[in-house]
């Protein structure tokens, strides 16, 4: 049987050296307040990275995790293929189903449409972080109690969407719940049960 090395030959270790010296050393600016801006501590220098693998430090569920990936790797693929965090699902891979939803700096984000390298320095929460202490989060408990899941494939994304919603709105109305998860597709049709689960979880999170 043909044997090939585990790693492509040209994959270099470590970040590439900047090709544009003039870009180095420009003053670091403070991050702006929008979701689109990074936390302090993000890399501030504008050097060219890639196209080969580069080291990317991600802050996931409170822990620093370093991966060595090409800049083209999405946050979703980094989580699933490089960090064994497979709770975050790949469903459409184009931002229209919410299966890959994670929280980045507290905001719900489709990880399939975000480059992992762009998530550097930001606070990333995945489904695995929600019950890190081994205890179900109230949203997860209510999902179980109300049977707000069937095949379960949309469920991690749904749970994260509900968390993002309840982080923002303590007592969402039914319409607000519908809106809050309107970017998540469930093919089994569990939506109505999810509405029930969110309404039951809301008072427990106050």
């Amino acid at each position, binding site marked *: 049987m043909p044997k090939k090395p585990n790693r492509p030959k040209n*994959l270099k270790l470590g970040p590439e050296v900047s090709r544009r010296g003039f870009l180095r050393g420009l003053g670091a600016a403070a991050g702006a307040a929008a979701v689109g801006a990074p936390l302090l501590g993000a890399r501030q220098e504008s050097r060219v990275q890639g196209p080969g693998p580069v080291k990317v430090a991600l802050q996931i569920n409170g822990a620093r995790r370093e991966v060595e990936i090409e800049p083209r*790797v999405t946050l979703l693929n980094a989580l699933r293929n490089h960090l064994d965090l*497979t709770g975050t699902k790949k469903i459409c891979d184009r931002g229209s189903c919410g299966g890959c939803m994670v929280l980045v700096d507290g905001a719900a984000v489709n990880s399939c449409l975000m480059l992992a390298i762009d998530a550097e320095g930001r606070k990333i929460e995945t489904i695995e972080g929600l019950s890190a202490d081994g205890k179900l989060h109230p949203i997860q408990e209510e999902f179980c109690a109300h049977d707000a899941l069937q095949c379960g*494939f949309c469920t991690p994304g749904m749970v994260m969407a509900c968390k993002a919603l309840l982080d923002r709105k303590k007592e969402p109305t039914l319409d607000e719940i519908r809106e809050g998860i*309107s970017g998540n597709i469930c*093919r*089994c049709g569990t*939506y109505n049960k999810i509405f029930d689960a969110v309404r039951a979880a809301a008072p427990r999170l106050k």
Partner: protein
Amino acid sequence: MSRKVRTKVGFAGKVEEIEVTVADNDPDPWGADAKLSVVGTRVPRVDGPIKVTGKAKYTYDVAPKGMLHGAILRSPHGAAVVNSIDTSAAEKLEGVVAVHAAKKAGARVLFHGDEVAGVAAETEEIAQEALTLIKVDYEVKPCVTTVEAASKKDAPRVFENRPNVQPGRARGGADADGAIEKAPLIVEATYTTEVQTHSSLETHGCVVQIDGGSVTAWASTQATFGCRQGFAGAAKVEQGNVRVISEHVGGGFGSKFDIGREGHIAVELTRKAGRPVKVMLDRKGEHLHGGNRPSSIQAFKGGVDKEGKIFGIKVATSGTGGIGGGAGSAHPGFYTVGAWEKSETNVITNAGEARAFRAPGHPQGFFGMESFLDELAEKAGIDPLEFRKKNCRSKVHLAEFDLAAEKFNWKERRRAKSGSDAGPKKRGAGMASSVWYNAGGQGFKVDVVVSPDGTVEVRNGAQDIGTGTRTVLAVLVAEELGLKPDQIVVKMGDTILPPGPNSGGSTTAASLGPAARAAGLKAKKELLERAVRDLKAKPGDLDLKDGVVVKSGSPTTMTFKKLCQALGTETLHVTGDREKNYAGYSETVAGVQMAEVEVDVETGQVRCLRVVAIQDAGRVVDRLTFESQVSGGVIQGVSYALFEERRLDPNLGVMVNPDFLNYKVAGSKDCPEIIAIAFDVANAKNNVGMMGLGEPPTIPTAGAIANAVANAIGVRVRSLPITPDKVLAALEAKKS
């Protein structure tokens, strides 16, 4: 050997006793009067916690050591001949380990998405990039994408050796024309439905690992045992050397019975690479070649009189299931329609083949028939509910009609005059029914294994595709052992476990449930025998309830855990067999749905506001997962009625919406309020009385919605999905 047992059957208080023939091996059936403590309650899904935490491992999540990522190159054309295929550049790309040309020079591709080649690489990104380096020279051929185009005399043939138009089954066979001609009122109408893709959220695919002569395949499937055969064939090994694992499955809906082309490609790539390979379809591949519900064109003619008597109905159907699969529509048989005549035509087109899809043939056929019943009722000047009651010979349906009308408030919600609401948003109500046929089948086994520490494990090799089979088995074994369902561990989805069914025809739970109950009962008997001496009892005096041994109806101090300690170092291992169904009370399950819609007559948008779904499933084992199944069926029905449509470009043959942007699946804001009500029928088809549930709840929804739209706006849209353009066109046609 068998024995005769008398058991109580019936519904809604109308109970009678019948005699059934029960295999000696099988427990006495639970009758209408059975006193059960767990069965029939609301039990949270036992695999809920691992699914809500993301810990459940689906095929997509499996990554054995050294695994490569696969990707599939697909035909960009609706029809073409491959003149040449050159994979050398792809092979040279760093990180690519294996390339497999699935089509050789001279081969034909028959549809957009037809598999041309596969690549295995170190990363997903490299595999995707490698696909762009495979050079294929195509000679593009003319293609046909619609029934109309493919049926033309001079239409290009999809298969050279077969005409596109294939006669299907003829049914009924009565002289409906003659009967219809005698009717004072005659109605003719044609209904159409579009192709719907299954759109399971976990796409098709597998991870294949070959060690010497043995194959392990993780597959996203609804047929672990079927796939064992499939992989054995693809890898050319004996089935005994293949293990298929499918612990959790992200939906299937009828599309995941075999290993598919992707399974064959995965085996080829694994062999070439000498390393495990994962091949999961991307969303586009899933739409293009992951199965679909065929389209339909249903031409009805029927006769009726002012009293609502139907003289006869004749229907001619045609449809396309792409390159394969029939396109038949199934119509209800529980209405008295006089002479019934049906003919069927299947038309081959250049598109991915149809596969079984949740109640194959039924949502489209029932949409047609239930719409037509409303049109007959309208012609006769009779309320559609009354009209159905006049012409229904199913006693369960008749009872459900009344219950639905009450829960839905039919009298109030049904508009006496269409369009009578003030403003541009008009409400209306409609109804439709369903029927299903299965009580599961024989030949399967469920093991119950009890350990001295009190752990109870239930084992079967079939898969739980999200329907809740695990939970049903846990409930039934818990019932017999006097435990709570979450105290039972259920292992499923692995062909090293006892044989189970493919998940088709709504048979899985009902095929395994009675075997689980039998195994639970056997385990109970064997355990209690060990307590007879300690408790100074006769075997018949003891039972298990609420976690303790009960003697002559009173709890003892012996807990279940203590009882199990008597096993010493032994593990109790019993097997329950699924015996054949009895000649029970009813061969079918009945369902009725009523829907309320709001139609914006200026923009054409339809919203479904409310659905009452009354559903019979024989004995409901778990009312919580029952509700989920019914609600889910309704929501898929809403989506089918209002949004879903595979669009093929008529000239290029390409699917223009192979995504979730423009292939529109109902979301949270599109869901009606759903009231799902179990209509309990003690049916005595098997020792539990379970019947199939997965498919029937999605059958009536589209018909009910279409009827509600007609009630709201006073004009009928006879084509699914009922999109704004069609509503506006219908309103315009009504004006002129």
